[in-house]
């Protein structure tokens, strides 16, 4: 049986070094590039008509625009407007990684913890830096909700602090785990089908069962791909909002 983890292995394509650091162009980089090219080409074609009455592709791009715009409006308010390109790009990057990964023989860069961690840390660092710039030391009142009784203060402070620093971890692990688990399951079922073929005629029939199941799973994985990109973007909005305004 094929190793279901083999799909996550990174193969260098063009070896590249900057100083001592290995920054080779890998299959992961390739699929990032494909994601970038596909999204740029698709959106450019979609946006080009500039039509008053949009066609299908333009409609889709406008729906994406409205989707992100309303996400930002609802979670960050009018001040979040300046984060629009950032969140839009974030959503597209994650969405592309998740959905391109469903193609056979492709590579899912969002199933790599380092990629999701980098994205999550980017948001996390932005929250801290922007928060400190905007509110100075006042930013740390984020960890002290108002009207906290004095004797509870140490406990609440600790809890708030921990929950704040756990954010990038949960944000990145959620996406990573979802993508990895989904792809492992797909691979395992596919492997069942393939190995069943070795059993002759009966195997051909029996092999259909996991294949059918996989067809359903692919649909499910598409939903997960979208859902996780959405969750990632929404949580980023919510975290960034802390930097914009201190609610408590």
């Amino acid at each position, binding site marked *: 049986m094929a190793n279901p*983890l083999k799909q*996550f*292995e*990174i193969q*260098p394509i063009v070896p*590249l070094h*900057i100083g*001592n*650091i*290995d*920054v*080779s*162009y*890998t299959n*992961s*980089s390739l699929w*990032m*590039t494909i*994601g*970038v090219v596909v*999204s*740029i080409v698709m*959106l*450019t074609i979609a*946006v080009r008509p*500039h*039509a*008053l009455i*949009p066609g299908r592709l*333009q409609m889709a*791009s*406008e729906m994406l*625009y*409205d989707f992100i715009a309303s996400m930002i409006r609802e979670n960050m308010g009018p001040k979040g407007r*300046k*984060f*629009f*390109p*950032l969140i*839009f*790009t974030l959503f*597209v*990057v994650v969405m592309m990684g998740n959905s391109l990964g469903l193609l056979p023989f492709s590579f899912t*860069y969002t*199933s*790599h*913890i*380092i*990629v999701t961690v*980098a*994205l999550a*840390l*980017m948001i996390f*660092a*932005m929250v801290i*830096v922007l928060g400190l710039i905007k509110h100075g030391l006042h930013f740390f009142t984020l960890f002290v909700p108002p009207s906290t009784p004095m004797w509870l203060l140490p406990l609440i402070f600790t809890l708030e602090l921990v929950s704040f620093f756990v954010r990038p971890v949960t944000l990145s692990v959620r996406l*990573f785990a979802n993508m*990895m688990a989904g792809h492992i399951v797909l691979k395992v079922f596919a492997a069942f089908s393939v190995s069943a073929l070795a059993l002759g005629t009966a195997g051909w029939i029996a092999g259909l069962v996991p294949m059918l199941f996989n067809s359903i799973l692919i649909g499910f994985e598409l939903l997960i791909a979208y859902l996780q990109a959405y969750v990632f973007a929404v949580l980023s909005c919510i975290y960034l909002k802390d930097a914009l305004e201190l609610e408590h």
Partner: protein
Amino acid sequence: MLKAPHLILTAGLVSLLPASFALAAPEAAEHAAEHGSGGLPQFDVTWFPSQIFWLAIMYAILYVFFSRKTLPALSSTIENRRNQVESDMEEAERMSSEAQKVQADYESHLAATRQQATDQALSVENEIKEKSLAQAAAFRERSEKEMEKLEKSLSKAKSEAMKDIESIVTQITGDVVKKLSNLDVKEAEIKKVVNNVSGEIADKKAA
């Protein structure tokens, strides 16, 4: 549209990360070697710097492209549409109010015309009535005059006839008396008798 501070921040943060991982790399590489190929490929730190490096580049490309091209184009398209729809709505509202005005004008005009028509019809009717009344009055007057004239000439004819009858009766009576009694009665006397008799007859008739 492009928020340069964000871009710099984003790119800077992401590109800083490889350094931190590079520091951890030697130690982690040993760790990975121990595990061999049995562990998850995701935890193989060999490729961490490369992953972050290329992710940062791709993210930056997308960010710049989206914020410079796609998003302004999309927002201008959507804005244009909203403006168009708004102006269309305004135009429609204006036209509808104009139509209402025209409708009101038409109705008042119609009412005025109807009133005028009624007035005209009434005045024509009155005129006709007056004319016919006048004509009827004139006709009556004329016919009354004629009747009067006729009556006059009739009564004149009657009195003449009566006078004639009297003289005829007097003559016939004189002739009859002369024939029967051979008396020559004076005409004046006969006339007297005849008058008496006719007076008696008239009295009898009256009674």
